[in-house]
């Protein structure tokens, strides 16, 4: 139960229009107060349990997304918030958009909406909690997501 009582989140905005982001932040504010569930918006991935991703992935943010994912200690859960993060949303066929977050890293739960209400995001967090517990029990590790060669700029 310990995991489910203290989910620390890291909020990763990859390519979002801010609509989802401000709602994620709104979850933490007094009206919704996610800290009731022990949620803290912790700044560093090293201490996070739940990765809350907003926005679709583009070619520049894909490295960031993978690095952050790799730096979260197991067990970890990825929550995709909003239409963009889930499926690419309205931007799914933009030239610089790779697609939903699940194209790049494994996603455990999705929150629909553009943008989702804070209540919906709280629902997502609650859903993530049980997944977190399961992962702990089953000792399920997130696999290291490799940076593919072509995503590292050639002039590195």
């Amino acid at each position, binding site marked *: 139960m310990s995991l489910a009582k203290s989910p620390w989140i890291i909020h990763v905005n990859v390519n979002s229009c801010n609509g989802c982001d401000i709602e994620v932040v709104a979850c933490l504010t*007094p*009206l*919704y*107060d996610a800290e*009731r569930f022990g949620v803290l918006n912790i700044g560093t991935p090293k201490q996070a349990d739940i990765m809350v991703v907003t926005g679709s992935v583009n070619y520049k943010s894909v490295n960031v997304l993978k690095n952050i994912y790799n730096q979260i200690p197991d067990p970890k859960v990825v929550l995709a918030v909003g*239409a963009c993060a*889930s*499926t*690419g*949303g*309205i931007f*799914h*066929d933009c030239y610089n958009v790779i697609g939903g977050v699940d194209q790049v890293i494994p996603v455990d*739960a*999705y*929150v*629909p*909406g*553009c943008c*989702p*209400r*804070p*209540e*919906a995001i*709280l*629902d*997502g967090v*609650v*859903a993530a909690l049980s997944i977190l517990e399961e992962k702990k029990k089953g000792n399920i590790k997130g696999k290291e997501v490799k940076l593919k060669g072509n995503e590292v700029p050639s002039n590195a």
Partner: protein
Amino acid sequence: MGMLNLVLANVSRKPATRLYPFEVRAPFKEFKGRIVFNPDNCILCGLCQKKCPPDAITVTKADKTWELNVFRCIMCTECVNGCPKDCISISNERAKTGAKEFIKIVVPKVDTPKAAPSK
């Protein structure tokens, strides 16, 4: 000392927190929660698909299916306003969180669409 007053006032009041999910505030009736499709009148004309900005709707005439990718829909209500048969409506219930959801509905009776239906 402005802040001191504010925080002390906060302590003296009940917390402003809405205790969701333990107490659920009824959604406003104006809220655009989710798309509801009523297949009864649908003529598979595909107008909704054409109007939908994120391409969330797929109408397949051959299979007689109407399909909605709930997790791509942005609740813009273009389809609601665009459907000639008023098959699509919007509800103030939110779509469910969790696994990705596709609504795929086989349209029962299809009148071959006549010419552009007039309102």
